[in-house]
């Protein structure tokens, strides 16, 4: 009960901090919107592209790449914005599991919100070609969960190792590639409106990766935070 209580309080604190400054949210939202707009303008240079055969594939892959970079930017901040003395204060009042758990839950919330907004903006600019919207929406939510769990732990490691952005991308990309491969396959299935049962295997793999990453994060973070 203690852990849940601590996690809940830290989670509320994260939301409150974000609500006051709205820095991460607005920054990443602006990033997403401007990227989508750049893509929109670039695609408009070749008229009639939305009727060509490759349009659906480009649509899907482009969306995931935008979400990937947006989430790296959003989540990399989660440990870097904390000052050293404030971290020290958390450690005296809360258990390490509560800290990482609250960060993960907060990032899941942030990323879900951001990717839903990104999807809406994306749909506004690009012709909608989704065959199974509910399933596509589900894959976007699953994707933002997986990105959050993976990137939170990696950003904790990177922040301990000198806080640079290069290290964050070097460490996270090999880990995120399997996730994004499965996600693109899953959402391509939803886009083509395939039979849903064909994709249950992919959802299973994603959930399994999430559970593995979450379990290892909870096990390893207590060793990471002690300096």
């Amino acid at each position, binding site marked *: 009960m203690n852990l849940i209580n601590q996690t809940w309080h830290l989670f509320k604190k994260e939301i409150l901090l974000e609500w006051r400054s709205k820095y991460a949210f607005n920054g990443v939202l602006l990033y997403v919107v401007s990227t989508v707009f750049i893509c929109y303008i670039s695609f408009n240079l070749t008229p009639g592209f939305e009727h060509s055969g490759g349009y659906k594939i480009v649509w899907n892959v482009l969306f995931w790449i935008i979400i990937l970079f947006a989430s790296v930017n959003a989540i990399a901040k989660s440990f870097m914005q904390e000052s050293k003395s404030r971290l020290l204060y958390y450690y005296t009042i809360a258990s390490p599991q509560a800290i990482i758990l609250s960060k993960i839950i907060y990032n899941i919330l942030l990323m879900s919100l951001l990717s839903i907004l990104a999807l809406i903006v994306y749909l506004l600019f690009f012709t909608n070609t989704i065959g199974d919207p509910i399933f596509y929406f589900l894959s976007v939510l699953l994707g933002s969960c997986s990105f959050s769990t993976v990137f939170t732990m990696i950003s904790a490691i990177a922040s*301990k*190792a000198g806080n640079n952005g290069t290290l964050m991308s070097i460490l996270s990309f*090999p880990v995120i*590639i399997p996730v994004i*491969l499965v996600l693109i396959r899953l959402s391509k299935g939803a886009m083509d409106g395939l039979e849903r049962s064909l994709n249950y295997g992919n959802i299973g793999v994603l959930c399994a990766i999430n559970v593995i*990453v979450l379990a*290892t994060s909870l*096990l*390893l973070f207590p*060793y990471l935070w002690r300096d």
Partner: protein
Amino acid sequence: MKFIYQTWWKVLAVILVFSTFFTGLLFHVPTLPVLHETIRNLYFHVPMWMAMLTVFVVSVFYSVKYLSTGKEEHDLAAVECVNTGLLFYSLGLVTGMIWAKYTWGEFWSGDPKQNSAAIAFLLYCAYLVLRNSIDEEQKRAKISAIYNIFAFPIMIVLIFILPRMTDSLHPGSGGNPAFGKYDLDNGMKIAFYPAMLGWSFIALWIATIRYRIRLIEYKKNAIN
């Protein structure tokens, strides 16, 4: 740790690996379309991955041990196991690529198995980069141990689970039968299992030698 100074398993490793040179190249193999004699690559390609997996498991074991005890030696063992594992990783990739040239037609054909093996290679390169980025020894040991434990399950998912779910040409993936199903008759097993064991021991041997060299260097540099 006494195990690494004993001789019997090193002798066994040499005997086993030498025996597979003869049994693997001379024994009867089933005649199959496309594969023909390249099926013998099973004795030399799969053991490389087995050897890699062995040293990586040992490395994770020592990373866990480092986190619980904080002894510098455990960190040295973990990093040397990863270095040795990367050597066998490259050998496994190269033997696989040579085999692919004769059966699939290209050294690198973008097969899911090849691609995820390459990504997993990046995962362990990132481990080495992470080590180089931290100067303080204890911090480096701790953070890299954490990353090592974190990376291992991802590597398993990448190499052994994901390719099985897609259309891979690799035996054992994408609905293709593994050799174990019905090609691996009793004649092949005589060559295959000793090769697996022998190469795993060879990998361990290389790792222990590298570890012992590092240990000597570490003791020389220590301040008494």
